[in-house]
């Protein structure tokens, strides 16, 4: 019986650090059947217009939007935001 060498190789295993946030972030929506009161046609412009109104009222921003405020700059940068 022939004898031989037993080679044992060690390899450097790349260890990649990936972060795990450990948070689950969810948005919840209530689903309704549409009623007559709901907007029948929600165009992008309508959504944008409504978003601006809601930004002002919900976040209690001054009515005359000023792009010196971070939020307004943010809004302008992303064109519109949506609360619904």
């Amino acid at each position, binding site marked *: 019986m022939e004898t031989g060498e037993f080679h044992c190789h060690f390899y450097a295993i790349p260890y990649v650090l*990936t*972060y*795990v*946030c*450990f*948070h*689950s*972030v*969810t*948005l*919840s*929506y*209530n*689903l*309704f*059947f*549409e*009623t007559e009161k*709901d907007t029948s*046609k*929600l*165009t*992008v412009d*309508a*959504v*944008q217009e409504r*978003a601006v109104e809601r*930004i002002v009222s*919900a*976040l*209690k*921003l*001054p009515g005359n939007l000023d792009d010196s405020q*971070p*939020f307004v700059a*943010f*809004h302008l940068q*992303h*064109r*519109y*935001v*949506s*609360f*619904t």
Partner: protein
Amino acid sequence: MGAASNNIEMLRSALRAARMPFCAAGDIPISQDIPIKLLFRVSEQGDHTSMNSVTFPLSKADDINPLLEACKQASFGRGSEEVLDPSYRRALVLHADSFAIAPATAVDPYGLGMLAKIRQSLLSDAPGATNRGEDEVEYEDDYEEERPPQGRRIVAHLDKMNVYGVGDFFKGHVDTPRSNQMLGTLVINLPVAHEGGHLVVHAPYPSGGASGGDSGVAQSPLDGGPGQRDSYTTTWGSEDVLSWVAFFSDCPHEVLPVKRGNR
């Protein structure tokens, strides 16, 4: 003869209901080039409102901290009261009037086709609903959901955002109905890496079984029920997709604890 016919019809109705799906779910790949920005109110003093934002997917784990600091402990309905009970629910919440999403199209149930899929999956047998295919509905440039010939459209109203950290959970419950027109709940999981925290949606109790009640949280809607119950468990935790699930209002559901794990 009439009574027999009625009984047969009731039996048919029950069998139809038993076969109907109780939830719909899907994953939508997100574009890494168009991050989802969540803008939220941090503080308010007089006319001055301080805002902050978090971008998803996160660049690093700490990026979420400002959002956590802006959130409150989440309560839930028990009977006619809103209660804080960390033994039943441990989570953070931000209500819809305190945050916004940009661009709006990044997380939009209409534009991303979720509502069409929900109607197709959950309401296909409902009176007035149609079996329209998702590809029959145009969503490219506007938010109008084409009205089915005899059907009713579904609208989704953003209610709140919840954040579940390590060990956070929400035991089995049934949501409080907001109106007679409410048919269910849609939950969208933002692209944040995590393990655990899965949402388990259970089929509604059969007629005559234990019930979650008309309002508030059932004491133990998932305990002591009759036999096995169909359920759907999400597989959330990816940074690459927006995962969503929608279910009828009478479905008990629970959020399993977010776990620490290895990646």
